[in-house]
């Protein structure tokens, strides 16, 4: 059980059967969760906590579109170098800039409707990127293209977090 996919008995793939992942996660949790060992000895309680921690971590990575992509690329020996490689296509950066300006404007004007629209647009973009990632990783096995797409997805994720912060500011 060396990797997260094997842990849940799944084939390593970006397009993942979410229901199967969740079922496997719950099947394992129902056997090893610390609640099952609350009255057991220290050794078993510790083993249970360590295993559950590992299963939770694996589940977190696999169910998250960005983390899952990064993890698959790692498994395939692709150094995505997210920290150092920040070069992105100019067109994408322009679009990001525009989105950010729209966000700043919506936040400044405390316009919840504009935030909603921005969020919907972002969600559509992400869905499209995830579909492209599944195609690059699972079908074409084109990992360098996939790394580029993953970086884009991370950009969008950051933007989403900023939108969430803007909502919070609005409601404060």
């Amino acid at each position: 059980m060396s990797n997260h996919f094997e842990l849940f008995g799944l084939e390593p793939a970006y397009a993942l059967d979410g229901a199967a992942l969740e079922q496997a996660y719950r099947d394992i949790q129902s056997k090893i969760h610390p609640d099952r060992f609350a009255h057991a000895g220290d050794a078993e309680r510790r083993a249970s906590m360590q295993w559950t921690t590992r299963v939770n971590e694996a589940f977190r990575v696999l169910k998250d579109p960005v983390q899952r992509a990064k993890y698959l690329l790692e498994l395939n020996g692709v150094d995505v170098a997210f920290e150092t490689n920040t070069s992105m296509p100019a067109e994408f950066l322009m679009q990001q800039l525009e989105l950010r300006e729209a966000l700043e404007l919506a936040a400044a004007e405390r316009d919840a409707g504009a935030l909603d629209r921005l969020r919907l647009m972002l969600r559509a973009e992400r869905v499209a990127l995830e579909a492209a990632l599944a195609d690059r990783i699972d079908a074409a096995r084109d990992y360098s293209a996939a790394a580029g797409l993953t970086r884009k997805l991370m950009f969008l994720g950051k933007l989403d977090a900023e939108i969430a912060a803007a909502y919070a500011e609005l409601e404060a």
Partner: protein
Amino acid sequence: MALLQISEPGQSSAPHQHRLAVGIDLGTTNSLVATMRSGVAAVLPDEQGRPLLPSIVRFLADGRTEVGYAAQAHFADDPKSTIASVKRFMGRGLKDVAYVENSPYDFVDAPGMVQVRTAAGVKSPVEVSAEILKTLRRRAEQSLGGELAGAVITVPAYFDDAQRQATKDAATLAGLNVLRLLNEPTAAAIAYGLENAAEGIYAVFDLGGGTFDLSILKLSRGVFEVVATSGDAALGGDDFDHRVFCWALEEAKLPPLGARDTRLLYGKAREAKEALTLHGEAPLTARLSGGEFIDLKLTTETFCRISQHLVQKTLGPTRKALRDAGLAVEDIKGVVMVGGATRMPQIQRAVAEFFRRDPLNNLDPDKVVALGAAMQANVLAGNKPQGEDWLLLDVIPLSLGMETMGGLVERIIPRNSTIPTARAQEFTTYKDGQTGMSFHVVQGERELVSDCRSLARFELKGIPPMVAGAGRVRVTFQVDADGLLSVAAREATTGAEASVTVKPSYGLSDADIERMLRDSYEHARDDMHARALQEHRVEGERLAAAVRAAMRADGAMLEPGEGAEIERLLAALQAVLGGSDHRAIKQASDALNRATEPFAARRMDASVRRALSGKRIASLDA
């Protein structure tokens, strides 16, 4: 039983013994204890048949303590030594405590946690809470006719690490074996979900005496999964009382009041507030110590106006939880109302308006948390056979992080992570020849360290001198199933290791707990040695039974020689169990625990494989 079958937890082949387990709701205003009796969760009343225990403790000069109604009777005439709403002080410093100016207490700003000077000396909130827990423990043991095997204690979901640690310390001090700290809204969801066979996404709106939680849970086929939780650990019915109190002061044009009159007027304010739940207006009358007579009328309209911002304050966390869960109001199938303060009509209205549906009020909002905790305690004690129990997946409410350069927070574990969880981060040395590194652990959502709660500071020494950047320290955060954090740091580049595990500084040290235990037993003229012996015996017997069951079920997994060694240690434990040397029992138990660790790990491993047996096992090598 097939040879390779792992025995299901709680279902050893030894004759099943029912373990006495209770759920305790340690509330700001009232506390309760409940247990499962003939398959039904029930609150255990006191001798007079009263289910609630007011969370009030009075310390007398002769060293006696009064808890509950007896203490409440002196609420106004002995304000300094009669402590109410102590939950607000748990794990909190003086600067965090609201309405200090209206509190009659003589606060002592101790490091970490505020303390109160009473007629019986300075008391920490942990000690005060322990008195409440002791009273409930006695009530349960008398009512159930035996020693408790364990208890589930509930805490607000939004409690941070310091508050959780303080609660656990209080339980230890009260002599309780804590099976689990359980989040209050989660406990309520268990009680509600089981009672109503609920499936789908539910919100639990829990407004208690001093805390507010909003949790969103996914209920499906025996799984209770918390998707997101949010709240305000300092918002509750007490704040509404405070509004009425301030309104009365203003209306009656009163000068600042003394401690007794403040208490008196607070009590009257609360009564008027509660009366408004059923009536359109309520009288608020009181005769103060100086002879002044207050005669006011509080109308629903006035009450709504003066408390409007408090009602609004519950909606911010509600929106945040929905956002964190990635859900909209339409996705919520029902809103379960918990906590006495949800009886207020304006709260009911605000929730109905926000969620665009009538909230669910079919369970007693005062009891539902204790009942859910009792159900969970029964499962944790192993009293429920596999298949009839359920799985609970809870989260941490607040992000955990470390201070980095410039007073900024580096987030290590984000809020709403499913527990238990662990995350590691590597830090490098920034100076040539640097041999130490200091760490500051914080909890909260803000970017600046100064806006977050400081949990612990520690230093790692003994890093071998290297050039800057070459020394690497790996810091691991581990959050257990109680939501409690431990942090370990390890330098491993050169093979030389140094490690340290910290307990959050807001919690009490083990030495503090030991001292308090000693004090309390000396006071009760109890014998601490007898207590320790009893505890270690129970623990040792439990361990021996668990190990034997494991050997019977999975003997085939033992390595050559391993079984004989475990048998030897089992016999050694058995030999001292009947004796009176509690240290020997502890040592034998520890040795057995250590020796069975690899075996336990192998069994857990097999369990995971078995969970995936059938169609998915193909890709796993056995």
